[in-house]
């Protein structure tokens, strides 16, 4: 089948396709799901995946999508509210339907998996059964750790000592009165250094390890991975493609993906599902179609088709013929 230059073979029919959605808190998972549901309902984007038939349980999706349409903040998914969203999908022009099971997983759950080195039985089952994985990354969290620069430190010491020499020539007023001054701010005891705990690990190490953990349950069975860099509008100023952005900002993760592509093929997408800051939507709030605020960047092409990552992970070959 060829739609929009995309060749797609779907998994065998009649079997629900499970997608494991991984992301730390505030990675944009729920916003993506809300906008995705809007696209399915509105059919505003030609050639995007279509809803085959309404599933019985829709309340959660309707609630988060209503907030998305109104430019309101969507509450983050917390542990007890985690749920599996089931959606019946159809590829445009095809009569084949399939059931997509996507857990609207709490980022909090993934943070706890990494930090406590424990996971729920549900996660283990899903990680072992999921043919596909979506990894959500938020650019605002991809900040490289700052190494203590001893050269800057030495320069600071030099400057400090210059000021100390200067101060030494001045006799403090209180000293003449025999009053002991409290230590100045910079002379006060240095704060106790922090002891390492897993929460201080770098963002990219956490993401790599979450992929490693989920992979460990999957074994050698192949899997497909869509990497979604959310809030892509924030990255626009950098002028990178999503692939290049990942290589520059999260090099360890980028290497991990490339070195494991024999068991887990992947594609990288830059996606802005929200469009802009909620408080400053600018001209986007005037959009006639709600989907006009969506931006999807993949392999040098820009579209509004938020279903592309899901189409990719559901495709058998994973090859996009462009």
């Amino acid at each position: 089948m060829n739609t929009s230059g995309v060749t797609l073979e779907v998994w065998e029919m009649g079997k629900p396709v499970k997608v494991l959605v991984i992301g730390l808190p505030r990675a944009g998972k729920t916003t993506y799901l809300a906008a995705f549901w809007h696209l399915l309902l509105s059919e505003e984007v030609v050639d995007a995946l279509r809803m085959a038939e309404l599933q019985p349980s829709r309340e959660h999706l309707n609630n988060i999508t209503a907030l998305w349409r109104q430019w309101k903040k969507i509450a983050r998914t917390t542990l007890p509210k985690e749920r599996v969203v089931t959606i019946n999908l159809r590829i445009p022009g095809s009569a084949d339907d399939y059931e997509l099971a996507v857990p609207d997983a709490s980022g909090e759950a993934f943070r706890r998996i990494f930090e406590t080195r424990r996971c729920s039985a549900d996660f283990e089952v899903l990680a072992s059964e999921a043919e596909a994985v979506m990894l959500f990354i938020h650019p605002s969290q991809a900040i490289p750790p700052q190494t203590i620069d001893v050269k800057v430190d030495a320069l600071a010491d030099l400057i400090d000592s210059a000021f100390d020499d200067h101060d030494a020539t001045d006799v403090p007023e209180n000293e003449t009165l025999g009053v002991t001054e409290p230590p100045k701010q910079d002379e006060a005891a240095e704060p106790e250094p922090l002891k390492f705990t897993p929460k201080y690990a770098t963002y990219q190490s956490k993401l790599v390890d979450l992929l490693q953990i989920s992979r460990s349950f999957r074994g050698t069975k192949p899997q497909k991975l869509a990497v979604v860099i959310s809030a892509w509008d924030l990255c626009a100023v950098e002028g990178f493609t999503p692939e290049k952005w990942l290589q520059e900002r999260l090099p360890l993760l980028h290497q991990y993906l490339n070195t494991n592509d024999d068991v887990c093929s992947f594609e990288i997408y830059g996606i802005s599902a929200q469009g802009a800051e909620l408080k400053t939507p600018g001209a986007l709030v005037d959009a006639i179609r709600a989907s006009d605020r969506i931006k999807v960047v993949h392999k040098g092409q820009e579209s509004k088709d938020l279903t592309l990552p899901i189409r990719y992970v559901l495709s058998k070959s994973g090859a996009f013929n462009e």
Partner: protein
Amino acid sequence: MEDLSNLVCQQPGCPLSTSGTCLEGLDDPHTCPHVKEGPKTPQPPADDEEAIEESAALTSDWKPVGGGYELTVEEASWVTAEHEAKVIVLAGEPDSGKTTLLATIYELFSKGDVPEYSFAGTQTILAFERACFPSRTASGNQKPVTDRTRHMRPRFYHLSLREAGEKRNRKHLLVGDISGEVFQRASDNQAEAEKLSYLKRADVFVLMLDGDKIQSRTERQEVVQRASLIFRALLKAGMLTKDSRVQVLVSKFDCFDPDDANSKEFLAYLKHELESRYAKEFKSYVVSEIASRPANERVDFAYGVRELLKPWLSDRELTWDSSLPSRPDNLVLREADEYLWRHIGGLGNG
């Protein structure tokens, strides 16, 4: 290794709370008579109150995943059983820079600064992160430091790597970070040297010598004699043999003042002394210089560190050419060299 954060050791100086390792060298600190089980470490504050209240109940029945810290000998043996892996043992006096070297290797991969290899995974991600943390501003330290390794049993850091140009094959590297005290004991007491049987499995035995001490007029004689004693003790114990590949690493090379001719002369003397006495005892022997985290501008960050990986990961004789650029750029030549080695040397790298 499992989460031991709720264990409290009452023995002064025990690093259990900082490094997760028992001063008595017990693999399972629960069995140590000095250790008491305290309440579980409070969870880091969650971002919303609801999550805080419910998280404890929700995660109490969760199943353990890989610990993420250093591997024990047994855990490391699972890696060697499953994959072709190279085992490197880092030995040396306390504070000679063993953990800093490991932290720097991980930092290089984290920045994508190792063109010859790509990171393919690790079972010890938290151990690497913990080794790196004290040198990051987030730690609150004023100067970059590295927590010392104190455990008496070997602990291994793991890296899975893929060589540039390779499509599938991964190479596994297990680097044993052994407490400096272990080798101090081995040089003091032959019975201690005979306990170090895991050295026999090492593909490369690395003896790290503290460059800062070598350039110190008062400490350098002790360094060379201790190194010599360690070699003698391990040879006598049969832990190092004619089949051993041995590398002497002079760490903290940034400490050497290029204008200090006497230090240069001493370094040359040290190299000659060790080489003339021990090189013939081993299958291969090489001296290299590194500055994992230089404290001045004399050398670049990670000076000499990238160059360690290729010899560690291959079966070829150890070589070292300090004239090599820190970041070699002639990839074609290196691949050709690798090809020739595999086919002429007949030693596949797996």
